[in-house]
């Protein structure tokens, strides 16, 4: 096994284990912390696939901003004191079984059809660096970039309008 394979399996196991931790932990604060672990593992995968800019953006935006927002809301509501009322056992089992069935269907459908193509790793291209991505972003994707700024403005206004006391 080469180093990249060892890193791939380590990051995959970390991501899947932490994702199970997200849905299994009772306290919402622990769920947020496990989700941060998932995001760091996914950022490691991005670095393995030469998408360095996306890895940094993933850490800054998701682990840095969005998760802090989640933690802030949870602290604001003081949710960690009260226990979440549990769903019925049958409903829980139904949810788990349907998730597992979807997993089985996806794996069975995609394992046979996927060509055994290799995903090259670590080295070879500098496509994921900020220089190339920025050039493409401001040449070919200027209009979506500007539209996303309008989207952010409307999101800000919407959050303020929804969140303020009437």
């Amino acid at each position, binding site marked *: 096994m080469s180093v990249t394979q060892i890193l791939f399996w380590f990051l995959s196991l970390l991501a899947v284990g932490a994702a199970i931790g997200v849905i299994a932990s009772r306290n*919402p604060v622990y*769920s947020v912390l496990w989700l941060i672990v998932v995001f760091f593992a996914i950022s490691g995968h991005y670095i393995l696939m030469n998408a360095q800019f996306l890895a940094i953006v993933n850490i800054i935006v998701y682990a840095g901003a969005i998760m802090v927002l989640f933690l802030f809301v949870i602290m604001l509501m003081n949710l960690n004191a009260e226990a979440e009322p549990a769903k019925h056992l049958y409903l829980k089992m139904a949810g788990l079984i349907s998730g597992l069935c979807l997993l089985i269907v*996806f794996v069975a459908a995609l394992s046979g059809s996927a060509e055994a193509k290799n995903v090259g790793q670590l080295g070879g291209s500098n496509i994921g660096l900020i220089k190339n991505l920025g050039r493409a972003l401001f040449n070919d994707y200027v209009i979506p970039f500007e539209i996303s700024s309008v989207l952010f403005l409307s999101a800000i206004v919407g959050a303020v309008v929804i*969140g303020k*006391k009437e």
Partner: protein
Amino acid sequence: MEIKWYIFLSVTLFCIGIAGALTRRNAIIIFMCIELMLNSVNLLLVAFSKMHLSGIAAKFPALATDAQLFVFFIMVVAAAEVSVGLAIIVMMYRNTHSVDINFLNRLKN
């Protein structure tokens, strides 16, 4: 690594997100499961772009950056969505003093 391991990893993360959204009742945790599903899709997009990098992108280098910019825009939209969604959850908590989604069945009738 072969592409199928990345597909399996992304599908596993996606199905864990779906199982979490179906089994939990806390609205914030359901929201986090949706974020988990978004991230698994992002991971699969980057893996596919990396897979095609050797074939297509040797002739058309502009195409190689497309998938990564797509992922970037997905992150932008997700950030906007999270701010509005958390505002909705805060408003719901202010009205019902709970984030249990079973209280939200008033639109049913």
